[in-house]
C-alpha cells in the first residue's frame, strides 16, 4: 500500500474514527485504526465493537486532488501513536507506505517514522450494507429525533433491552420509542418511502450509540441515510459511516400503555411550568425520588409544592391557560417532568391526566408527533 495525502484531511478523518476507539477493549486488534487505500480514496476505520466509524477521503473532490500515487492495500496501525505523529509532521502532505511484515512508513519532509502495524485481515469485517434498503433523513431531523427520545432510556442493566431506543416502521411512519419503565418518550415521523423495499420493521438501537452519533453529526441540512442489516445499523453521511450493533431481543409492546382518554386536561406555558417545577424540586431533592405534588385550583390555577420534613417546604403557583375536567392531586418525579418539559419547544404544553394513580401524557400544543408519558408516584 502506498499513497500521498493532504495532512489536514487525514487528521480530520483520524479524529472522527478515534471517537469510536476505546482503550478498554478485549480484542487487541481494536486498539488500532484500519487504513484502506483504493483507487477511489482512503478509508479509515475505528471500532470498539459496539460502534464503528468509517471515514472516507475521496481521491478527488470538485476537481481538487486530495490523494495521489495510490497503490491499493490496507494495514492496521496503533491508534495510540498514529494521530500524534500525523499532527506533528512538518509538511502539508504526508506519504504513507507499507512494507512486508506490516511495517508502516510515514514520510513528510525530513521526518520519517517506521511503525509496526498489524495484519488487516485480523480486523473485524464490517457488514456490507446495500443502499437500496435505506431511507434518508436530514441531519437536523435525525438529531431532533435522538434528542427527544434518548434521554428516556434506562441506565440500569437489569433489563438490557430498555437501554435502547426502539425504531419501528409502520404505515409510512417512523416511530422512535424509549422507556425505562417509569417514563416513556416517543416521536413519530411521517416518512416517504417511495418504492424501496425496507427489510426491517423493528430494531432496538443502543442509547449509548445514539448519544455518540448525535455528537458526530453536525446540525445542517445535509442528509443521512439509514440502513439496517441483521445485526448492525448504518448511518451514512457524505464521507462518514457510523455503524452500531443492535440490541438483541424483543422490545416490549408500548402502544397499550398510552391512555386514549383523559379526565383532566391542562394547557399551560411550558417555560413557566418548567421553572416552577425546577424551583419546587430544590427542596424535594433531599427526598429520594425527588417528588413534587401538583394540585389544580380554581380559576385555572395550578399549585406545585415540594416538601421535605427536615428542610422545609415550597409552594409555587402557576396560572395556566386552561384546566378542563375533574379536580386533581397528583405526585410525580420532578426530574422526569423536567426532562420531558425541556425537550418541548412550543410555547404551550398540554398535559392529559387520567386520575392520580394513572400515567399522564405530556404533549406540545398542536403537535401529535411528540408524546411523553410519566408514571406518577404514590404518596400518602
Amino acid at each position, binding site marked *: 500500500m502506498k499513497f500521498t495525502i493532504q495532512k489536514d484531511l487525514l487528521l480530520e478523518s483520524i479524529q472522527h474514527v478515534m471517537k469510536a476507539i476505546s482503550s478498554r477493549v478485549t480484542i*487487541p486488534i481494536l486498539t488500532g485504526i484500519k487504513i484502506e487505500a483504493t483507487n477511489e480514496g482512503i478509508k479509515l476505520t475505528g471500532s470498539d465493537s459496539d460502534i464503528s466509524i468509517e471515514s472516507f477521503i475521496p481521491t478527488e473532490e470538485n476537481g481538487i486532488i486530495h490523494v495521489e500515487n495510490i497503490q491499493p492495500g490496507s494495514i492496521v496501525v496503533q491508534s495510540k501513536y498514529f494521530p500524534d505523529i500525523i499532527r506533528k509532521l512538518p509538511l502539508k502532505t504526508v506519504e504513507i507506505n507499507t512494507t512486508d511484515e506490516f511495517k508502516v512508513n510515514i514520510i513528510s519532509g525530513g521526518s520519517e517514522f517506521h511503525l509496526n502495524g498489524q495484519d488487516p485481515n485480523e*480486523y473485524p469485517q464490517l457488514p456490507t450494507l446495500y443502499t437500496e434498503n435505506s431511507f434518508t433523513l436530514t441531519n437536523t431531523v435525525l438529531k431532533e429525533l435522538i434528542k427527544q427520545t434518548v434521554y428516556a432510556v434506562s441506565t440500569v*442493566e437489569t433489563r438490557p433491552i430498555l437501554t435502547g431506543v426502539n425504531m419501528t416502521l409502520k404505515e409510512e411512519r417512523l416511530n422512535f420509542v424509549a422507556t425505562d419503565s417509569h417514563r416513556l418518550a416517543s416521536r413519530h415521523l411521517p416518512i416517504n418511502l417511495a418504492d424501496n423495499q425496507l427489510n426491517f420493521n423493528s430494531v432496538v438501537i443502543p442509547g449509548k450509540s445514539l448519544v455518540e452519533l448525535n455528537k458526530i453529526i453536525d446540525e445542517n441540512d445535509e442528509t443521512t441515510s439509514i440502513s439496517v442489516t441483521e*445485526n448492525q445499523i448504518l448511518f451514512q453521511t457524505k464521507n462518514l459511516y457510523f455503524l452500531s*450493533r443492535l*440490541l*438483541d*431481543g424483543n422490545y416490549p409492546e408500548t402502544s397499550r400503555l398510552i391512555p386514549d382518554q383523559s379526565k383532566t386536561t391542562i394547557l399551560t406555558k411550558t417555560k413557566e411550568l418548567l421553572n416552577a417545577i425546577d424551583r419546587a424540586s430544590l427542596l424535594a431533592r433531599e427526598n429520594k425520588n425527588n417528588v413534587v405534588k401538583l394540585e389544580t385550583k380554581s380559576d385555572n390555577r395550578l399549585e406545585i409544592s415540594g416538601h421535605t420534613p427536615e428542610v422545609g417546604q415550597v409552594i409555587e403557583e402557576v396560572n395556566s391557560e386552561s384546566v378542563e375536567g375533574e379536580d386533581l392531586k397528583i405526585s410525580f418525579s420532578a426530574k422526569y417532568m423536567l426532562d420531558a418539559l425541556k425537550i418541548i419547544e412550543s410555547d404551550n404544553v398540554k398535559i392529559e391526566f387520567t386520575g392520580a394513580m394513572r400515567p399522564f401524557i405530556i404533549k406540545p400544543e398542536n403537535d401529535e408527533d411528540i408524546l411523553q408519558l410519566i408514571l406518577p408516584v404514590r404518596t400518602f
Partner: protein
Amino acid sequence: MRSWSNMIERQPIATKMLQQMLVRKRVSHAYLIQGDKGTGKEAIGYLLAKSLFCKQIDNSEPCNQCHDCQRIESGNHPDVHWIRPDGASIKKDQIAHLQKEFTYTGMESNQKVYLISHADLMTTNAANRLLKFLEEPSRKTTAILMTENNQAILDTIKSRCQILTLKPLSPKSVQQILENNAVSRENARLFSVVMPNLEQAMKLDQDEWFAQARSLMVQLISILQSNLDETLFFIQKQWMTHFSDRDKLNLSLDLLTYWFKDLIYLQLDQQESLVYQSYLTELEQATWHWSRQDIVEILVLILEAKKQLTQNVHPTLVMEKLVLQMQR
C-alpha cells in the same frame, strides 16, 4: 493440536463425541470440559470455536486458513470471548462485561462463543451472574467452560452444561513423546511424573533453573546424611532463595517425593522404575541411611508439608520443620 484428527490420539472419547455433535449439528449450548493440567482443554476450546465459525468446515474439521480460524487463533475474533482469571480469580466485572456483550447482536454474525478458562476460579458473585445467562441461552450462543477442579464448580452450573471429562495423560506416553522430542531419557522420565504437560515440560528441559533445582535436591539429601548441623543453614541460604515462591517450593517437594519413592523401588529391587536413574550411586548410598520404615514416614511428612503450603503456612517454616523432622 490444530485439528481434531491430532486431538483424537490424546483424547479419543471426548474428540469423538464433539466431532459427532458437529457433524450432526447438535451442538449444545454449554460445555464443561474438565481434565488435569496438560490434557488439552484449551486446545479443544480453540478447535470447537473454530469449528463453529469456520465457513469452509470439512466434515467437522476446521480449515485453519480462513479469516475466522486465524482470528480465533490470535484472539482477535469479535464474536469469540475468552475469559481468563484476572489475578487469582474471575471477577464479577468480567462476567458483567460478558453479560453486556450478550445483550447486543453479534458483530459479524449472530453466532457467539464464550470460553472461560479455570471456571472454578470464578468468585461466587461471578458464578451466579453467569448462571443467569447459562439458564436462558440466547440463540446461537455456545458456552465453553474449562476447569481442572470440577469439585469447585457450582452444582447449578454443572447441571446446565454438557460435561466432557478428559482422560489424564499416562506418564509412559508423555515420556515417549518427550523422548521423541530430543529430551534426554533421564529428564523425560522425571518430567513425565512431575509435569505431565508437554509444552511446559519442553520449556523446563531448556531451563537452567530446573537443572540447578535437581542438583540442590541431591545436595540436601547428602547433607541430611552426613552434615546435620548444616541443614537449616542450607535451607535458609540456598533452598529458599532458589525455590522463591510457593509454586516452585511445591515443585521442590515433588522432586523430594520422587527421590524417596525411588529409594523404595530400589529396596524392592525394581531398578527399571527409578526416576533418578543417573543418581544411582547416591540412591544406593541413601538406602543404607534410611530404613523402609523411615522412608514411609518421610513421605508422609512431605505430603503433610505440601498440604501446609496450600494452607498459607510460611514457606520457610514449612521447610525447616520438614528437614528437622526428617533428621529424627
